[in-house]
């Protein structure tokens, strides 16, 4: 049986390679058409891609752990982003600047992330089989709670000293909190300039560390458990793995890393849109991961890098190309949003159809086996 599977795998033809990587290939073709139309210079594009890679990769990497545990795309990563934002609000109120500020924000975000992650994980354990839609709704629910805290409690119950970040009415946080004092402090440290392209080395080192951590984590006992749970929950339970606990841990880890990722993202942006920075981040990270060729149940570090490059390339060139073709700049803007949503839709559909096909195939095999036995 397993031999057959192996033999099948070896016979991967070129066509199957195309089919398995259809999304990235489509994106490469799309970008290949759009880049000349958009009229951007290669050095500009390279610069943008490197910046965006440094900004977003960490966030996207945090999606890998729940996929490993078979929990699908973690739309609840927004929770981590909100934890990071709360931490940044405090740090900016306490006037801790520069790299110490970033480190402090990361430490502060950990307990909030753990709390939110545990909540999310617990909820998802109660909604087995529809983790994704549940995590998606959780992100909205917690967004409401986040607004309650930030808009009404900060400054009235939770002490906020500086009036610069408070709303004029005396409580609540302003729409934007300036992070000017820690703007790109991590990106600029150790940054090198190659032919006019600024490479934020330290940021990439942090990303590499997270990659190494994920690679190492897969080999640990907990990582193995997680993969077992992802493969088949019942089998894992029979093998003595605490399934619920393992799943919660995977979500907590993802949330904590999402918090770190959001802090890195915002230190690059240099300002925090208190009520909107996090709202789209989950969607775009997931779209980027899927563009990289990942699917709901399988994603690798390679997918992350391919995805972040292609997705952001599309994001940069689509509005300009759209404006050139149709003469309306909004078309391109809408188009790239459409593509982001479309990619997620297609990936979800492909995953579900595959799951069904496998299920029916397994059913047929079982029926055939039973028939043989009866004879």
């Amino acid at each position, binding site marked *: 049986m397993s031999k057959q599977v192996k033999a099948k795998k070896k016979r991967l033809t070129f066509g199957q390679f195309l089919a398995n990587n259809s999304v990235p290939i489509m994106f490469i073709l799309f970008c290949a058409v759009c880049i000349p139309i958009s009229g951007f210079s290669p050095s500009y594009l390279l610069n943008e891609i490197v910046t965006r890679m440094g900004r977003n990769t960490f966030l996207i990497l945090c999606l890998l752990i729940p996929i490993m545990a078979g929990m699908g795309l973690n739309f609840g990563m927004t929770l981590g982003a909100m934890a990071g934002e709360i931490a940044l609000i405090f740090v900016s109120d306490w006037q801790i600047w520069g790299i110490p500020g970033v480190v402090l924000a990361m430490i502060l975000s950990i307990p909030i992330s753990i709390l939110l992650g545990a909540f999310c994980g617990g909820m998802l354990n109660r909604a087995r089989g529809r983790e994704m839609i549940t995590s998606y709704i959780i992100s909205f629910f917690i967004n409401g709670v986040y607004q309650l805290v930030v808009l009404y409690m900060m400054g009235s119950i939770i002490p906020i000293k500086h009036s610069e970040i408070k709303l004029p009415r005396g409580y609540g946080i302003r729409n934007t909190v300036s992070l000017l004092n820690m703007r790109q402090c991590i990106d600029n440290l150790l940054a090198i300039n190659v032919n006019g392209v600024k490479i934020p080395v330290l940021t990439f080192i942090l990303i590499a560390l997270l990659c190494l951590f994920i690679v190492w984590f897969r080999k640990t006992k907990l990582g193995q458990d997680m993969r077992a749970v992802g493969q088949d929950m019942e089998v894992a339970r029979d093998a003595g793995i605490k399934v619920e606990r393992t799943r919660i841990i995977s979500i907590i880890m993802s949330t904590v890393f999402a918090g770190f990722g959001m802090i890195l993202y915002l230190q690059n942006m240099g300002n925090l849109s208190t009520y909107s920075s996090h709202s789209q981040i989950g969607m775009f990270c997931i779209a980027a991961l899927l563009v990289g060729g990942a699917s709901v149940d399988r994603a690798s570090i390679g997918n992350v890098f391919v995805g972040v490059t292609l997705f952001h390339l599309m994001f940069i060139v689509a509005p300009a190309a759209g404006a050139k073709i149709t003469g309306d700049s909004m078309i391109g803007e809408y188009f790239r949003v459409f593509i982001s949503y479309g990619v997620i839709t297609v990936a979800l559909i492909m995953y*579900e159809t595959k799951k069904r096909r496998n299920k029916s195939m397994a059913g047929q095999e079982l029926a055939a086996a039973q028939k043989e036995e009866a004879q």
Partner: protein
Amino acid sequence: MKKEQQDNIWGPAKFNREMKSLGELTSSFGLPRMIITGFLVLLFLLAPVAGVDFFTQITNVLNRFSWNAVMVLAMVPMIHSGCGLNFGLPLGLVSGLLGATLSIQFGFTGAMSFVMAIVIATPFAFLFGGGYGWLLNKIKGGEMMIATYVGFSAISFMCMMWLLLPYTSPTMVWGMAGKGLRTTISLEGFYDKVLAKFALDCNKICGINLVIPIGTIAFFALLAFGMWAFLHTKTGTAMTAVGSNPVFARACGINVDRIRLLSVIMSTWLAAVGILVYEQGFGFIQLYTAPNNMTLPAVAAILIGGASVNKASIPNVIIGTILFQGIVTMTPTVLNSLIHMDMSEVIRMIVSNGMILYALTRKTEGSK
């Protein structure tokens, strides 16, 4: 086991269950629903304290109920057939918007434009709903997540189309460019208040500030009655059977896929009509990203009304819409005048999303 399920499907036992003791009723009513109802009652009690006119508030709630109820009704067929909560509502909304804009483009005015909007929206709803239903049949089990993203994709696709389609009616396109639809289009002269103007003004009769929008409510009642009647036809009961137990339904010789397809088309069409009813009350057509903000309230409303992921009835729709719209209209006015703090947006977010979350995480009723 099988017998019990059969009873559930075919009726009499279900009726008996509803007659059970009050304690069980509250437990089946669910804690969140109790809290929401309690909150709404509290708001009503506080209304006189806050100096808000009670009957004006009732009028507002009734108005908003009449605008939104049809969209909530659109949830029913898909829940019945086991397709879960219809997060793909935007697909129907988009066909409704197409109907509305095309009707104006073709030069219909007054009440005729409303009728024509429904007529024009219908083929679109059938087309989109058909495709959407076909898709959902391919991916049984993952409906809700995919529905969400199908809805988003549809809206962002239509965002481009509103700009690109060759609309020319001067009331709808941007004045400067002469092309591309505006984000909000006024319905004055078209079907603004076409149903809502048939209202019963109690001020003239008994001197209270109560206006009952009879026209819109009657329209909803018509559709709701149609839905109720449909659910009692042979096809309707088959639909319920498919939702409760697809294996059993198939064994009974019901074509599951066809029934599901039908339910999706019905949902989509009702959503299309729902947005038109909403527009005639609101007075404007909102295009581009606006339909996004319709889905979650509709889903939350029916859940608040007592529906679950795979069970819904007409009373659920009515109760849910009244409760949800009650909170939406009451919180800003009452809280604002009481504590000078407009927390309505946040409360609405927590209530509606919390309700959906609660429904999704209830262990007992897993749709596989």
